[in-house]
């Protein structure tokens, strides 16, 4: 890329100093976590109750951390925007959770889970973090069983396992199609137990709108948050010794995604604006097995667990003219089981990015099925006829009954008698705030866990690994690393009238007033939908330089219009859902631009990031390890402030790119192949 006289690369960003993790100890990889736990300073039990930790988000990563730190005796304040911690979107995860238990004696091990995760992430994750994830995975299952999580069991009373997208061993524990729900209820119950014990204070219907950062330079510390009570509208200040963001991913930047309606980037984006680097924002996972879009009114997309790919076979007609036929009338010879054809050894179980892109390819060829949406058919068949013939309808019902019911309810079609239709949808974001081995961001005292950080999945996440990471971070990693920070960082007094606190409060109040004062012509949703269309079109399954440059222009224009023309009715001092949405969409409008800049600068294809300019002759993703084997950690730069007033909507100046080199000491760097 070219650098012009102003020092800007491509006119969009600046190169900055490299960044590195300094927390992972030296030595063999299998000893690093044990050593780190030993070397991390301890906090005397008597002192813990004097130390407070704020945790934003109550999904697996936040709920588990809040419960565990509460059990340890710290004073925890737990925040969620929903009406109960149990509603966090971890609850919607269906398929399962990986753990290197090797209960099936099929060759699994910590080493193999580590290897599969690094390979699945297309060699763009940090080895030390991934090894630790694999290492603690077995403890998660033990912990959850002890809490009463009702995992599926065999007749002998032992736990059942299944194999899951992209791997060849059965290491996935599950609770029918409701694994996320059951794990979250486990964490939630542990959390409520601590609320009753008085160690955790629970703040529901509260949204974090700013992080309080005190001090300058190396003395900076995250010391609390500004939150809005969504019922009364009151802006509240909460101070603490450390802040943990466990606020989930940012897939809703695409408007249509499998995320919950309220899932948002505000907590992490506000922290980014205060100095926390945002890593690999362009790494987005598009999930292959979602129910296709039915029409213009669509508010969200529904995923069906990819465990369906264990028994369902994916196909489209060989001939375009068959696309509007009843699938049951299409002869076996006229069907193209394209994943089985292209990837004979993995077949329908190839990783998500490959399954998604191939679905897009066959639909782009005009061989898609289902209703015409926009200009062509966006859907492929997922067929259980063979599985029902082989296992019987009862066995299939037993395994997938709730998913089949859900499909029938949404589409009005019966998947037992006619093939399901599926299409890819945005599902998970691998990018997130940059953290070191201790899960600490570039702001000291600000920790980030679960989907909100970038740490473990590289450029692509394997199935059943999100739940694993959320609980690993929450139960086992963060509680061990945060104590080192709490024990060693000097507690300086901070009061509500300190400049850092007053400033953060004022920012929130001004922003709220401004959103309500614009009183323009367009609804928040209309901006969100338009942003989503731009992101899906130009920063979705396939990205190109031309498209991304266009997207950046479009987003900037849309953002400017938002701050000029959005209409948010109602008042600040009451429950106001339009106001909540407006704040979230305002942040998505900035994040979207950074995602496009990140996608533009990474001129390679890796994992969920596919650049049209970087593919092999037969259309496979092509990595460039010599140039891009690094984590892209972006530093926020404020917009040019010409008139000295807060410039809402100008959004952001040119971000600064800090590269963390990825070195592979324990796993050999290879081009991924699932053929």
């Amino acid at each position: 890329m070219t650098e012009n006289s102003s020092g800007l690369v491509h006119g969009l960003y600046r190169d900055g100093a490299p960044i590195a993790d300094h927390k992972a100890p030296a030595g063999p990889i299998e000893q690093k976590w044990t050593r780190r736990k030993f070397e991390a300073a301890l906090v005397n039990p008597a002192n813990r109750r004097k130390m407070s930790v704020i945790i934003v988000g109550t999904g697996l990563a936040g709920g588990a951390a809040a419960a565990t730190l509460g059990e340890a005796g710290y004073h925890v304040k737990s925040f969620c925007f929903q009406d109960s911690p149990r509603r966090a979107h971890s609850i919607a995860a269906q398929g399962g959770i990986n753990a290197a238990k090797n209960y099936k004696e099929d060759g699994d091990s910590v080493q193999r889970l580590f290897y599969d995760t690094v390979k699945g992430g297309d060699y763009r994750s940090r080895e030390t973090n991934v090894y630790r994830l694999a290492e603690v995975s077995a403890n998660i299952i033990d912990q959850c069983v002890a809490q009463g999580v009702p995992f599926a069991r065999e007749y002998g009373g032992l736990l059942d396992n299944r194999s899951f997208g992209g791997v060849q061993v059965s290491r996935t524990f599950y609770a029918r199609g409701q694994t996320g729900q059951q794990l979250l209820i486990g964490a939630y119950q542990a959390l409520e137990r601590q609320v009753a014990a008085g160690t955790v204070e629970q703040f529901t219907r509260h949204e974090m709108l700013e992080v309080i950062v005190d001090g300058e330079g190396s003395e900076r510390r995250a010391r609390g948050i500004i939150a809005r009570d969504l019922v009364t509208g009151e802006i509240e200040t909460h101070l603490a010794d450390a802040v943990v963001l466990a606020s989930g991913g940012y897939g809703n930047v695409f408007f249509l995604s499998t995320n919950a309606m309220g899932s948002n980037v505000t907590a992490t984006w506000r922290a980014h604006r205060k100095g926390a680097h945002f890593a690999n924002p362009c790494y987005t996972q598009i999930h292959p097995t979602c129910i296709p879009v039915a029409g213009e009114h669509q508010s969200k997309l529904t995923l069906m667990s990819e465990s369906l790919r264990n028994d369902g076979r994916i196909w489209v007609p060989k001939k375009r003219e068959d696309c509007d036929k009843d699938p049951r009338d299409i002869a076996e010879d006229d069907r193209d089981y394209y994943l089985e054809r292209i990837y004979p050894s993995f077949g329908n179980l190839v990783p998500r990015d490959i399954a998604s892109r191939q679905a897009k390819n066959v639909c782009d060829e005009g061989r898609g099925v289902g209703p015409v949406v926009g200009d062509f058919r966006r859907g492929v068949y997922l067929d259980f006829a063979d599985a029902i013939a082989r296992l019987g309808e009862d066995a299939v019902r037993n395994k997938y009954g709730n998913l089949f019911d859900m499909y029938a309810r949404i589409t009005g079609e019966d998947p037992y008698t006619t093939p399901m239709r599926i299409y890819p949808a945005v599902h998970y974001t691998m990018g997130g705030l940059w953290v070191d081995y201790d899960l600490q961001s570039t702001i000291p005292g600000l920790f980030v866990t679960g989907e909100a950080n970038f740490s473990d999945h590289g450029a692509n996440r394997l199935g059943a690994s999100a739940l694993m990471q959320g609980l690993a971070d929450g139960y086992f990693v963060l509680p061990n690393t945060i104590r080192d920070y709490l024990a060693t960082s000097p507690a300086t007094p901070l009061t509500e009238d300190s400049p850092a606190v007053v400033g953060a409060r004022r920012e929130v109040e001004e922003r709220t007033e401004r959103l309500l004062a614009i009183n323009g012509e367009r609804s928040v949703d209309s901006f969100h939908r338009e942003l989503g269309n731009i992101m899906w079109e130009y920063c979705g399954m396939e990205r190109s330089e031309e498209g991304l440059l266009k997207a950046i222009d479009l987003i900037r224009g849309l953002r400017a219009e938002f701050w000029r023309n959005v209409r948010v009715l109602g008042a600040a001092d009451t429950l106001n859902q339009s106001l909540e949405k407006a704040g979230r969409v305002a942040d998505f409008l900035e994040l979207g631009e950074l995602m496009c800049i990140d996608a533009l600068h990474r001129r390679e294809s890796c994992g969920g990031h596919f650049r049209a300019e970087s593919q092999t002759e037969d259309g496979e993703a092509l990595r460039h390890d010599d140039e891009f084997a690094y984590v892209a950690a972006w530093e926020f730069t404020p917009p040019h402030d010409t008139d000295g007033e807060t410039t809402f909507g100008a959004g952001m100046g040119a971000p600064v790119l800090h590269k963390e080199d990825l070195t592979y000491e324990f796993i050999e760097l290879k081009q991924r192949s699932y053929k």
Partner: protein
Amino acid sequence: MNLTLKIWRQTGPDDTGGLVTYRMSDISPDMSFLEMLDVLNEKLNANGEEPIAFDSDCREGICGMCGLMISGHAHGPERTTTCQLHMRSFKNGDTITVEPWRAEAFPIVRDLVVDRGGLDRIIQAGGYISANTGSAPDAHATPVPKDNADRAFMAAECIGCGACVAACPNASGMLFLGAKITHLGELPQGQPERDARVVSMVGQHDHEGFGGCTNVGACSQACPKGIPQDVISQLNKDLRTALKHGR
């Protein structure tokens, strides 16, 4: 299709509130009920009227955040969550009444939004197994017979939406409570706290202002997860056993 909606509007806990009539046209049968309300809210916003407040989050029937009383039925005419109810369940020309959950223990916050914090406090009273992080034995140390594991799972499917309370003429939370008692009581890990749990949770349930079970069965009929009424039998049995043990 064209519909007449009568929707409960209430600006806050102190407002008396009332039904307001809205007419909707060109509604697609493939829309979900909440997407239909989204369309209405867009229209209201365009007309300068404040949108209707209602809760929803996952919109795939699992988080339990949504819940509306639709023409007198909790979550509407189908056995599902409000977000999974589709307009194909209605007919052109229908008049649909939309109200919040009605129960003393669920005070109204605004419009269709209620406060279900009482359900969290029932869980705080003992709806858990005390197992601190890191203290767990190997997951295979205690086999669980499949029948017990399956029944525990069935009860654990409860999403805490509160439809059972809204459907009950006595606003009882005993289906919710019985589901948790059954989930944890079926598992060997849940035995040490079994007696104390049921006594404490029943006490909290009553303290919150939920009514007692009157054996109507509307709760189970309204439950989007089909939790059977016999979890209330289990609840009563566990309570009797605990009291016999002198708890």
